[in-house]
């Protein structure tokens, strides 16, 4: 740290950073547009001008752009210098020349960075009498709404979209005063991270199209900290509700996890909460019933003396799973996923707990400088991670940058120095992935061969690792290249997951990570889990489903309780039918109607993550708590409340009981402060202090205002009154600071710009490295294709493969039609006149008609079917299938 002088006052600043970063870190208000904490400086907007002085004697000084000037020790600047103030006001006035008179109907209004900066510089009256420039807008898909008139040409959108997210269909067109940001023509934005444009754009050019349908200003939203449940990464989000309807999701900064960005599934998947499919009232044999009656029936079924069998869920919170486990007894609590998935999940947890490699957070992914991905298309299975992997590709070029003494924040120069140089990224997958365009090398093969490659890489790094028999020369060469790249890196990373439905792939990744660690490299390992709380369920412990059927059969009159789990998506339909037919009574708790709920004798409406509190364990092993945003309509309750003990009065009771009963999960209670936490005796308000309509919202029903609901489960209140200082990070309901209404107010909550929130990093890590264990040696035989049969594998899709988000109306627009994919050579025999046709897939006595799709990168002998999108989604894959042309 060095000392810089701002308006004569000495302050500490990091000399590796720029002056804007330093000023904002010190809590000073300096307007800016083009700079973004995650994307560095380009000096395009000229808004952050300050006066810099040569030395203490210099009184004249010169104007510099704070974002482009290093915060070198002894720098003397002035923010308040009249010339600098006038310059900044002039820049804003220039930007406002063409800015339309849209604020009242603009969705950004009230959380607009341009509004904030305009107020900050004091520009309040339009002097220009000249006409305003206008543009035609484009249709950019179901997520992002385009209003180009409002643009101030800061270039943030294209810098994010092209440089950061690596997609190329958004660009700047035109010159001089007529620069246009959009696509070459109307169409859906290709990037899976396009939704971030809403937050990246400092004004209302890109706004949330889903919010537009039920528009509410930021100040009118009741907000709560939440955790995204649409994949296993556990990104932190802020949910906003008004009038009992979930309105939107925005990013909630977590320096270790999602940073400043979310994926589109996480941002737009929230709409399932408002879906027509929601179960809003308890039902007995399909007929709606009251809460009292449902409770009575539940207790009579539970106390009826029949054997209780509980089926848990990888997408339900630890608390809900625990409540069920407690109700039925731990010997009768089953995991609710296929045996294969359960085995893989438990193996992953075991590897992360017992292995020497650190379980990688998304920040670790971003900072790694060589990445090996085994068997995953991360963009589709854990989308946000793909964005981090893309950033990791820059790490090695930073060495050159540092040699040339160019600071890392000088974005354009750093990218210019890097040219096409990228850190090594190797992807072995059973098909094309969305990161192939930036990979050093890709290897398309069947799961067995991917695993063999992983084992071979491990052996190349460490001779003690088991050797792969019958290794082809080509694969040996590739393994050697990968091994060299990984060992040559400072922070190598291995990513694997369950997409290939192969435990060998996961074990091979563990071997690579272990080999690296044993040879003195600080390797990290990231294992993607199948669902948002798979690891939590594995830590809780449950019996495999294959034993559940036996248990149901043993007790002819068993009562089956299914927790937030559509069994038809997890297990073969025949098997599920068997379970359900054998059980005397079926109790189902769920949020959305599905095949399992349709068969329930007693159906209980379970709260979604917007309507309940709970804890999820992410793939990093980070236990994070999500909080209720609003009190749902009568009837909807947290699953742990439905199933839990009468003596539980709040979430704290559940958590402390989990802590004593299950020592592995003892630290989960620390994921967020308990409900007794207060700041100066006050709860933390969920509503901003300007929340409007308090005395009018329910006046149409009764003019007498109701008391705000109580929240026994958290230290957040359903009110605008309460603690006004910064709460612990895990309880941060929204980011707002005086003068900073937009989401960029997060600057005011960070210990240093881009670093952890002052209240700490939300969540607790449950996995720490250990020195135990050894190499896995279950090396599979090479894949051999069959002549008349294909190995059927699921293909993950960001939109559609995840159960809940697929019910969001905007995401539903982008869900692909079911298909069967074959590579061109294999497909040739099924094409009708050279055109794809409909085929019939048959395996294990099942048949499914699907259109044929030709996928060039799919290895020969494999067939792909979209995960979660067909009636086959519950079948245990991979499986050999026969394909016939449908007549």
């Amino acid at each position, binding site marked *: 740290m060095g000392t810089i002088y701002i308006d004569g006052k000495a302050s500490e600043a990091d000399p590796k950073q720029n002056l804007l970063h330093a000023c904002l870190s010190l809590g000073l208000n300096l307007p800016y547009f083009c700079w973004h904490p995650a994307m560095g400086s380009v000096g395009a907007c000229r808004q952050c001008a300050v006066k810099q002085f040569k030395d203490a004697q210099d009184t004249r000084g010169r104007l510099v752009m704070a974002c482009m000037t290093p915060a070198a020790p002894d720098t003397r600047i002035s923010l308040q210098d009249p010339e600098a103030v006038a310059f900044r006001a002039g820049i804003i006035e220039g930007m406002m020349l063409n800015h339309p*008179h849209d604020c009242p109907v603009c969705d950004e209004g009230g959380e607009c960075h341009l509004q904030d900066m305009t107020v900050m510089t004091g520009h309040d009256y339009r002097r220009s009498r000249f006409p305003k420039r206008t543009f035609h807008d484009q249709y950019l898909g179901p997520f992002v709404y385009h209003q180009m*008139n409002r643009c101030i040409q800061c270039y943030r959108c294209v810098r994010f979209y092209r440089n950061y997210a690596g997609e190329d269909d958004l660009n700047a067109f035109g010159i001089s005063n007529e620069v246009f940001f959009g696509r070459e023509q109307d169409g859906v934005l290709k990037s899976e991270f396009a939704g971030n444009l809403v937050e990246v754009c400092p004004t209302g050019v890109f706004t949330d199209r889903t919010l537009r349908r039920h528009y509410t200003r930021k100040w*009118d939203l009741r907000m709560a900290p939440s955790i995204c449940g649409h994949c296993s990464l556990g990104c932190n989000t802020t949910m906003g509700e008004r009038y009992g309807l979930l309105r939107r999701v925005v990013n909630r900064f977590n320096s270790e996890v999602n940073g400043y960005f979310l994926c589109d599934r996480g941002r737009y998947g929230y709409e399932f909460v408002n879906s027509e499919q929601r179960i809003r009232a308890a039902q007995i044999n399909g007929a709606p019933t009251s809460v009292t009656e449902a409770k009575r029936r539940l207790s009579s079924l539970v106390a009826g003396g029949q054997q209780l069998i509980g089926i848990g869920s990888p997408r339900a919170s630890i608390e809900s799973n625990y409540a069920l486990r407690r109700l039925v007894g731990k010997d009768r609590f089953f995991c609710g996923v296929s045996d294969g998935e359960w085995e893989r999940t438990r193996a992953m947890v075991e590897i992360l707990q017992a292995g020497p490699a650190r379980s990688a957070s998304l920040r670790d992914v971003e900072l790694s400088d060589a990445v090996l991905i085994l068997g995953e298309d991360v963009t589709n299975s854990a989308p946000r991670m793909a964005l981090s992997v893309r950033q990791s590709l820059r790490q090695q070029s930073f060495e050159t940058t540092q040699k040339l003494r160019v600071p890392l924040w000088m974005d354009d120069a750093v990218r210019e120095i890097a040219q096409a140089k990228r850190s090594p990224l190797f992807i072995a997958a059973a098909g094309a992935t969305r990161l192939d365009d930036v990979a050093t090398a890709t290897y398309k093969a069947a799961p067995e061969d991917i695993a063999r490659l992983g084992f071979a890489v491990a052996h190349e790094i460490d001779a003690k690792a088991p050797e792969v028999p019958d290794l082809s020369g080509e694969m040996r060469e590739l393994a050697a290249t990968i091994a060299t790249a990984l060992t040559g890196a400072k922070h190598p990373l291995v990513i694997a997951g369950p997409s290939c439905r192969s435990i060998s792939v996961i074990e091979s990744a563990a071997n690579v990570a272990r080999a690296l660690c044993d040879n003195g490299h600080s390797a990290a390992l990231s294992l993607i889990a199948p669902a948002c709380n798979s690891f939590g369920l594995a830590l809780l412990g449950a019996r495999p489903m294959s034993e559940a059927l036996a248990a149901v059969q043993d007790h002819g009159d068993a009562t089956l309780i299914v927790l937030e789990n559509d069994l038809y998506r997890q297990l073969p339909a025949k098997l599920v039918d068997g379970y359900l037919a054998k059980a005397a009574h079926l109790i189902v708790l769920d949020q959305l109607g599905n095949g399992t709920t349709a068969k329930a004798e007693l159906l209980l409406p379970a709260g979604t993550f917007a309507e309940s509190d709970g804890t999820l364990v992410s793939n990093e092993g980070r236990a994070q708590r999500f909080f209720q945003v609003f009190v749902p309509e009568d009837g909807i309750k947290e699953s742990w409340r439905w199933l839990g003990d009468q003596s539980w009065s709040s979430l704290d009771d559940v958590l402390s009981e989990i802590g004593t009963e299950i020592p592995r999960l003892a630290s989960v209670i620390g994921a967020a402060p308990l409900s007794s936490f207060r700041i100066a005796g006050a709860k933390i308000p969920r509503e901003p202090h300007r929340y409007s309509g308090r005395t009018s919202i329910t006046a149409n029903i009764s*003019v007498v205002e109701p008391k705000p609901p109580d929240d026994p489960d958290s230290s957040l209140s359903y009110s605008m009154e309460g603690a006004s200082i910064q709460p612990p990070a895990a309880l941060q309901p929204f980011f707002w600071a005086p003068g900073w209404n937009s989401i960029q107010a997060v600057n005011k909550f960070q210990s240093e710009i881009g670093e952890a929130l002052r209240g700490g990093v939300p969540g607790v890590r449950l996995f720490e490295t250990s020195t135990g264990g050894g190499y896995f040696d279950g090396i599979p035989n090479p894949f051999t294709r069959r002549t008349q049969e294909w190995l059927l594998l699921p293909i993950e899709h960001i939109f559609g493969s995840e159960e809940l988000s697929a019910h969001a109306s905007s995401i539903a627009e982008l869900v692909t039609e079911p298909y069967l994919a074959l590579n061109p050579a294999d497909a040739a025999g099924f094409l009708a006149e050279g055109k794809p046709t409909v085929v019939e897939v048959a395996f294990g006595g099942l048949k499914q008609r699907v259109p044929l799709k030709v996928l060039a990168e799919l290895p020969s002998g494999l067939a792909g079917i979209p995960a979660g999108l067909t009636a086959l989604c519950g079948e245990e894959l991979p499986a050999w299938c026969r394909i016939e042309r449908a007549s």
Partner: protein
Amino acid sequence: MLSIIRTMWSVFLHTFHRRVTIQYPEQKAYLAPRYRGRIILSRDPDGGERCVACHLCAIACPVDCIALQATEDENERRYPEFFRINFSRCIFCGYCEDACPTYAIQLTPDFEMSEYNRQNLVYEKEDLLIDGPGKYPGYNYWRVSGVSIGGKGKGEAENELPPVELRRLTP
């Protein structure tokens, strides 16, 4: 003693003053057009709803007695789906009128709103919306705003250039 006589004299003199008291309700008092009474929602000169559901009146309201929900017609013209004022809470401060960027919400010289039942003081949009432009006859927000609505495309607002032709080659 003297002060008592002076007071009585003063009272006596008032017998000959012009009367201030009027015979309300038979006789109505004059209220200036800017009097802050019952709140109305006005229409623009074209007859359309002026309110664009920007929520600024609601945030300005010190007693939080305004609640509304924005929605759009098929041409993306925004308007309130519902607009509710709880007059039993309203203090007639006029902040909502100050905040309104479209002259939609206006206070009128009418205060005769007494009710026996407090619930009747909750006014919905149907109760608030009048047929004319109220105090500001000429203004139409949509003619100034840069967004397109039915009947007004991009670049057709006041003081706007025609939309930039992106495929033009000359600078």
